[in-house]
């Protein structure tokens, strides 16, 4: 694809069209041609024969067509392109053309490339290579465009250090923003946490059997303090919600149980929950579920098709799943490597041991 941006029109009157002229003046013909083409849907590509078919060009002369299109392209109303080696054109909106006209030559060049990159944005280095402009020239052009509020700098998640530009009116694509987990190019940890928390509770509720809790004694309910009442209410609300908390009393489901949530079920549930305004795709949800698996909070069963919560997780219910090594003073000793008999650090002088043995 090659766009023609050789020269920016010097004269204004071609576009303003205030001057009346003869029946078949080139200007009128040009306008007629433009109007005809503009009536087509946006983005339609015209080739030479299509333009002849409009019966606007007198005698279907190739030279005249060439002259008109050249002028239109110069005015920024037509965009010259090539298809299979043949010339073809695209119509540019008049408003856009005016925008171009207010720009300097360099700016227009830079702008056209940034426009071409659309929602993906273009890296400044790539822009410089394509435009073949000098660094300072290009920077000046970019700065001026930014000042005019025509382009903006965006942060690409994959390459946060690259200066990337796109048109100010466009929303960056998901490739650029990194999907729902990123806000302004940085990871939204709180969002990830909230979503995974909800998901986990949802899956806990569906993958284990929670025996009903013993009823609270009615006697105590009359003498409850406000704090207790609120606590009880919060607990009840939690019970009624879509998910459950882990508890030691959870019992495994029957082996023939079919209700272990699958990826699509979880996605549907989280989108239906109204938890977030963002609609999660399955691929994004899978990423989240993967993270929960890697955290050791979920496990895949039924050949990886469904998810189940892990019954006991470190730190919950006040249970620390350690082993002999991690709970001993040596397992957490910062100078463990140097510790040896007769060395500067040894078992006799060890302070950590002293502390550990004290209680």
């Amino acid at each position: 694809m090659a766009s023609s941006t050789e020269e920016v029109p010097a004269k204004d009157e071609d576009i303003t069209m205030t001057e009346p002229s003869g029946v078949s003046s080139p200007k009128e013909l040009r306008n007629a041609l433009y109007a005809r083409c503009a009536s087509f849907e946006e983005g339609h590509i015209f080739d030479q024969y299509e333009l002849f078919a409009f019966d606007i060009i007198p005698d279907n002369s190739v030279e005249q067509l060439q002259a008109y299109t050249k002028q239109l392209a110069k005015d920024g109303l037509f965009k010259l392109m090539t298809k299979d080696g043949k010339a073809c054109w695209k119509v540019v909106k008049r408003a856009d053309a005016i925008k171009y006209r207010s720009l300097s030559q360099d700016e227009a060049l830079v702008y056209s490339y940034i426009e071409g990159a659309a929602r993906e944005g273009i890296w400044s280095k790539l822009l410089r290579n394509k435009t073949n402009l000098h660094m300072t020239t290009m920077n000046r052009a970019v700065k001026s465009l930014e000042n005019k509020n025509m382009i903006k700098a965006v942060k690409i998640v994959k390459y946060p250090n690259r200066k990337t530009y796109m048109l100010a009116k466009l929303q960056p694509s998901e490739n650029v923003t990194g999907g729902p987990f990123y806000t302004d190019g940085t990871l939204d940890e709180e969002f990830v946490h909230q979503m995974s928390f909800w998901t986990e509770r949802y899956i806990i509720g569906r993958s284990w059997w929670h025996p009903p809790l013993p009823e609270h004694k009615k006697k105590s309910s009359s003498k409850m303090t406000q704090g207790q009442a609120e606590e009880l209410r919060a607990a009840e609300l939690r019970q009624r919600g879509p998910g459950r908390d882990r508890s030691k009393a959870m019992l495994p489901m029957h082996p023939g149980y079919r209700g272990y949530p699958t990826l699509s079920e979880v996605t549907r549930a989280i989108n239906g929950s109204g938890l977030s305004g963002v609609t999660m795709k399955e691929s994004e949800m899978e990423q989240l579920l993967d993270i929960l698996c890697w955290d050791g909070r979920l496990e895949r069963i039924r050949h990886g098709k469904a998810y189940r919560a892990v019954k006991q997780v470190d730190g919950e219910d006040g249970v620390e799943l350690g082993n002999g090594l991690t709970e001993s003073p040596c397992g957490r000793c910062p100078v463990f490597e140097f510790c040896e008999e007769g060395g500067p650090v040894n078992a006799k002088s060890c302070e950590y041991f002293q502390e550990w043995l004290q209680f």
Partner: protein
Amino acid sequence: MSRPAYELCTLLVDDTYGELTSRIFKALLCYGRQSLPALLHRTDLSYRLAKHGLSVLVQQHLVLWNTSSDDHLTLYEANTAVAYSLVRSGKYIKIAEAQAGEFAGKVLSNLLLLGHARVGDLVQAYGVGQSKSTHDGLAATHGPPSKSLSSMSSHVDGRLEEEIFTLESIHRTLCELLQAELVSRVHISHFRSDADNRIEAEKLVPKPEEYKAKSKREQDAQHEAVVQRKLKEWRFCTNEEEDEIEDLKKGKKRLHRDLETRRPGKRQRRYSPLGQEVIGTTGEDYQPMLEGTGYLDSNLILRVNHAKFAVLMRNDHLVDLADRMISTSTAGVYAQVLRTLGPKVQDCQVEAESPNDKDAEIELSALPQLSTDDLVCAIKDSSELANALGKLDDGRLNMAQFDHPKKRRKREVFSEDGEMVDGEASPEEEEDAFDSNAEETISDIASDPDEANGGAKFEPNALPGFLLDPHRDAIRDHLLVLAIHPMSFLHHFPKTPILPEQWTIDFSTLMKNITHHTLLETITSRHGLPAARLTRILFDRGKTDEKILCSTSLLAQKTMRSYLLPLHKAGMIGLQEVPRDNSRNPQRTNFLWFFDPERCKAKVLEETYKTMARCLRRARVEGEKVKGTVEKASRSDVIGKEDEFLGAQELEALNVWKDMDERIWGEVSRLDDLVACLRDF
């Protein structure tokens, strides 16, 4: 084994058997296999002392020796495995008590102190016999064992005394221990190192050229197989007929039968030539049980069978894990599975029978199996089991997934829409398949001649007699829960037209999973949850670039780095540099993170050994502080009258020290659990 491990072993030997032995043991560890003159040079001991120490160590199996038949030079070698297992003595005694009663624990503790012992001597030590034997004499040469034996016979309470001092009860206990394989016979190969054993075995079996095989490779393979068989025979004291050990195991049954029927003259079993090498048996004809008497042959020499103890410890560990991961009731069923499989599992480390055989299915079917009926018979009460599984709202269950694949395939052929019912179908497909196939399944079963019982909606595989057997169903459900767990606690062989439903445990896969789980548990509690997340990603995805790791883990780059670096520093994960071109410029290099479980395991093990050694050192330091008081308290005139002889301060110090000592040893025992999990299981 590493330096910390050597230090640990030396400390353990020193604690148990004193300085002389530990000095020799340490020299053997540091300088490797040695002859006696070299050892004298290394240890600066007199000939008499060194001989004395070595004899103790050999008696305890702590030193292996071999006299070469070529130059008649005897070489000694430290046996670290047995030295390490000294730390487990307490656990062994507990297990023995659980398996064969309290008295068995006492017998075992004596056997542990003696290393190995003749049955006759063991019996005499309890005061039944009169004459002093050689082994008793040997035991008397180094304090603790003989002391404990004498104290054993003098300090038992009245109830036990009756039990202990009947000859029969000792024999019965030993028989039970033999049956449970907790003790085993001693073979000459048990005193030699693995390499020596192999050389000896190769001497005995025919040379590779003597096999009738086409190629050299096949000859070698056959030779290798024969050598391995020989080594295994020696190790487990079996012979070609393989029924000697069975005979021993049946000892007790025979004992009872013989006592009841008083039928003399049982069939004479001729012992194999192997009998000559089993130490303590001289004649060609050897019988472990003396005919008609119900007593073990007093010349039989026994030792503690460490391999079986490891199996039992592993069983406990597995049941504990099942309890934590699934539920207590399921763990109970699992414990029964392990108990039932027990006699078939001799050793934790199962060497692959044929390494070329890559077919997992074949290998699995070669493992010891048990059928559902075995378990149904073994578990008496299932009332609790039935309530220990999740109830369903709609009551619809998908039990077809546990059918034999052939049957499922047949069903698929019938279902013309081609929906898959087996495990590989996608979730949606599967859901649909069950809905639409529900009726089909039932009709299909009804048309099946060997399962004409139509009502088998939930249990299409049930035998006709067990159709409405809630007891059986409850047990089977729990077994299936174990089988579908990602840890693969159990492997399920569906019922086929010929074979009943079978279960087995694929220990190699299971232990791989558990080792992995243990390592990650360690990482989690040391470095935090995100570190475990990163490690699991590296394990799942293989070697990964930092950028991809960052986007996969959903961690900010800075956070991620703050976890990766400590992990790398601790040696849990590795970093590989892959230059993109020849310049080796860091900017033109890919840095890939990776997690190698084997490496990580070795690292954690080494740290654990070192930690144990540190703990033992610290226990000594604490002991030193109250040395005077402890010595005073252990004086023979003070024992029992501590309040009289010791001051309030001394008593207080003694109690504090006891608490600390207990705490440290408790920790050592916990550390040993970790070693057992990572190394022995």
